[in-house]
């Protein structure tokens, strides 16, 4: 009898992680015939594949971003629903990253491999929590795979923002947040902290905000940040994609204080470089403690690391008795988001 090896089930290829017995790729970075998509961020969910399997919310997000014709055919899989793909069985379970985000659980001949996609462990009011699945091989992201990245509790960061708003009532606060997931989570967290005033949003966020609201995430009173006199924005919070906060677009607001919600904001030099005066360390990715705690909790037979700062997490795993290897997949960005 031949040994079943993990690399026979999933192996890295230039297009992305490939499953030969099921003939599909997971989050391929180039167009392929069959794809499983973990979540809607552009570097994981690209247009132009033949057939796409994803959660209903992820399919919605892709259609919103790329148009209804973004793939040859689509198949929606609810969380926990086992879907056969040739010889293998694929189950999508919550990853806690953004709305619709999932881990891909791939089972074949008694072997279970879990592809985390991007994930986090802390509570997110805009999506269901990460669900740990016992597995032989855990294939983890490592965007924040360095011990310096330790995200503080969200509510503390939101409290710092609200304190600054109270301290500078004549100025506006411009919060840079990635358009999918982060922006809606910030808005939701502000609502939970009791900020009932209208929140002004950049045009690039409007469609995704509406999508989140359709999926039952109550974002409250949102208004376009494009109309109104400069003085109207005094004491107000404006949410915009990170690129807009420092651009000419921001000149319409009264003496704005630039905030940026990202895990990268943990490092002061990153904040300073970006001209950020109020860094908010809020991330949709697992921080170092969450990454290591997850490995510890699952104790997989092997840890594979897809992207991010692989070497540090691999070393930590080895020191803790979990064999680890870096796949060095290319094409996943870690600069814009956190």
């Amino acid at each position, binding site marked *: 009898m031949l040994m079943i090896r993990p690399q026979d089930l999933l192996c890295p290829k230039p297009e992305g992680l490939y499953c030969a017995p099921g003939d599909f790729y997971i989050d391929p970075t180039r167009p392929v015939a069959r794809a499983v998509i973990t979540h809607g961020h552009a570097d994981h969910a690209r247009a132009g594949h033949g057939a796409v399997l994803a959660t209903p919310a992820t399919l919605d997000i892709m259609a919103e971003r790329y148009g209804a014709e973004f793939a040859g055919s689509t198949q929606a899989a609810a969380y926990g629903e086992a879907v056969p793909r040739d010889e293998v069985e694929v189950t999508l379970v919550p990853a806690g990253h953004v709305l619709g985000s999932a881990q891909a659980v791939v089972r074949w001949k008694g072997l279970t491999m879990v592809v985390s996609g991007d994930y986090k462990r802390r509570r997110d009011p805009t999506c269901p929590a990460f669900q740990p699945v016992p597995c032989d091989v855990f294939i983890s992201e490592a965007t924040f795979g*360095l*011990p*310096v*990245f*330790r995200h*503080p509790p969200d509510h503390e960061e939101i409290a*710092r923002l609200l304190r*600054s708003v109270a*301290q*500078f009532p004549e100025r506006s606060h411009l919060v840079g947040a990635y358009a999918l997931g982060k922006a809606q989570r910030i808005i939701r967290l502000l609502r939970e902290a009791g900020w009932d005033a209208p929140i002004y949003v950049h045009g690039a966020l409007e469609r995704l905000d509406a999508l989140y609201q359709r999926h039952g995430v109550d974002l409250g009173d949102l208004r376009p940040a494009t109309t109104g006199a400069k003085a109207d924005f005094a004491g107000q919070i404006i949410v915009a994609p990170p690129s807009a906060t*420092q*651009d*000419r*677009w*921001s*000149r319409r607001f009264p*003496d704005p*204080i*630039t905030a940026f919600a990202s895990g990268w904001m*943990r*490092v*002061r*030099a990153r*904040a*300073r*470089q*970006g*001209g*950020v*005066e*109020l*860094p908010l360390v809020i991330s949709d990715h697992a921080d170092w403690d969450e990454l290591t705690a997850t490995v510890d909790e699952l104790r997989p037979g092997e840890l594979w690391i897809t992207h991010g*700062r692989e*070497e*540090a997490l691999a*070393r*930590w795993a080895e*020191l803790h008795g979990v064999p680890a290897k870096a796949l060095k997949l290319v094409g996943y960005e870690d600069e814009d988001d956190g």
Partner: protein
Amino acid sequence: MKAFADLLDRLSLTASRNAKLRMVSDYLRETPDPDRGWALAALTGDLAFDAAKPAFIRKAVEERMDPQLFWWSYEYVGDLAETVALVWPARPGANREPELSEVVEALRSASRAEVQRLIEGWLDALQPTGRWALLKLMTGALRVGMTARLAKRAAAEMASPPVEVAEVEEIWHALHPPYEDLFAWLEGRSERPSSENPGRFRPAMLAQAIDEAVDFEKLDPADYAAEWKWDGIRVQAVNEGGVRRLYTRTGDDISKSFPDVVDALQAEGVIDGELLVMRGGKVAAFADLQQRLNRKTVDAKALANFPAAIRAYDLLAEGAEDTRTLPFAERRQRLEAFVAKEASPRIDLSPMQPFDSWPELAALRATPPSGDPQIAEGLMLKRWDSVYEAGRPKGPWFKWKRDPFLIDAVLMYAQRGHGKRSSFYSDYTFGVWTQDELGQRSLTPVGKAYFGFTDEELKQIDKHVRDNTVERFGPVRSVRAEPHHGLVFEVAFEGLQRSTRHKSGVAMRFPRISRIRWDKPPGEADELATLERMLAQMEGR
């Protein structure tokens, strides 16, 4: 500790002076004694510890975590205190977070060995920002872009109604951290603390810049004395009741850096004057004085090579008598006698520059007589009948600066500004032409400026930068700078000095954009040789 840490965190990333003032005065208003007093002392530089050396901090963290993981982290972050603050693996069951005052009080009474154990316990109890603030405090330098004066101004502003910063400065040296008496006064709960301590600082009288177009018509030259404006730093030398001190014009005590000058103070009294490096009665360039400034300790070599002295221009007290209420003419006579009595080569008199009319004085300013006036910054005008009044009163004293040096330089790099200007490329690096042996011309950067233009001009330059970007490096863009394409600035500056840190070998003092030469082709901008000639002239007077 948390509130203090959050304050430092915000200050370190905030550029606007007004925003910083508000953050500090809000903190002082909301934080109870004695924490706020220790915080104020830390911000004014009156509280610093060297309780923890970097080597100790590093050793402590490497005992707790894999050194390789620490090294990767340090490599990524680049700052030891920040790295340790972020990676510190707390032990379970840590104590509650310490208050700032607990930290300060414990450090003051602990032995060296105890200190290290205490620090580890605090690092366990604190969160990353708190750990970062603690380590900054422990290693001696906050570096959050606060000056002592700005911190004192924030204290003055927390009072209701606000008081003048000079009122705080005048009593500062009678105060000791954690300043409970100061806050009691600022909050209207008690009298102003006494400032009658011997050796105290007297808030300085400052001059207004003269507006040539308006002011001279209204002023009678007979009412004013003129003297040269020296290019050193303004100091106040106090010898009173056996206490001898040297203060900057904002009341910072710099006695320790200038023992040679302090030793020269023999007669009891208070001199207002300029601190300069002087050799054989002749003033040296400002660059020489810089060799003595910002040094915590002075070695014999620096004392010998850069001898400091005071050029006196006013007398604020003589013996026990406060002379500030006397008119300037009378103070001047007393000063002349006082300096003669001191009879020290380290204290001389700033000579008066006689003149009869404003045009005559203007000519002297344009072409100063030989000797020290050649490197003066310009002229000072003081009303003969003016009393010595703290602050910057309008009318009695004027400064009339020499015209700045001007060159035409080419915009090479532009960097995003901060705060209000964060959407603009507002910090400009400019260069002048050099020639190599083959006659090939290229630009070499000679300075950086971020003011001197209007908001409207800033918009235009910003557009030029965006339209002519060659490359981007993070917040910096390189801008097209070719003989027939690019932007020329007329740059004004106050002086030049040699610099090994700049590739061009020269550094400008106070450079700013004086005009934007949209009309001028970059090829016609100045050459480095022009700057070298200016420098030689300044040095070879």
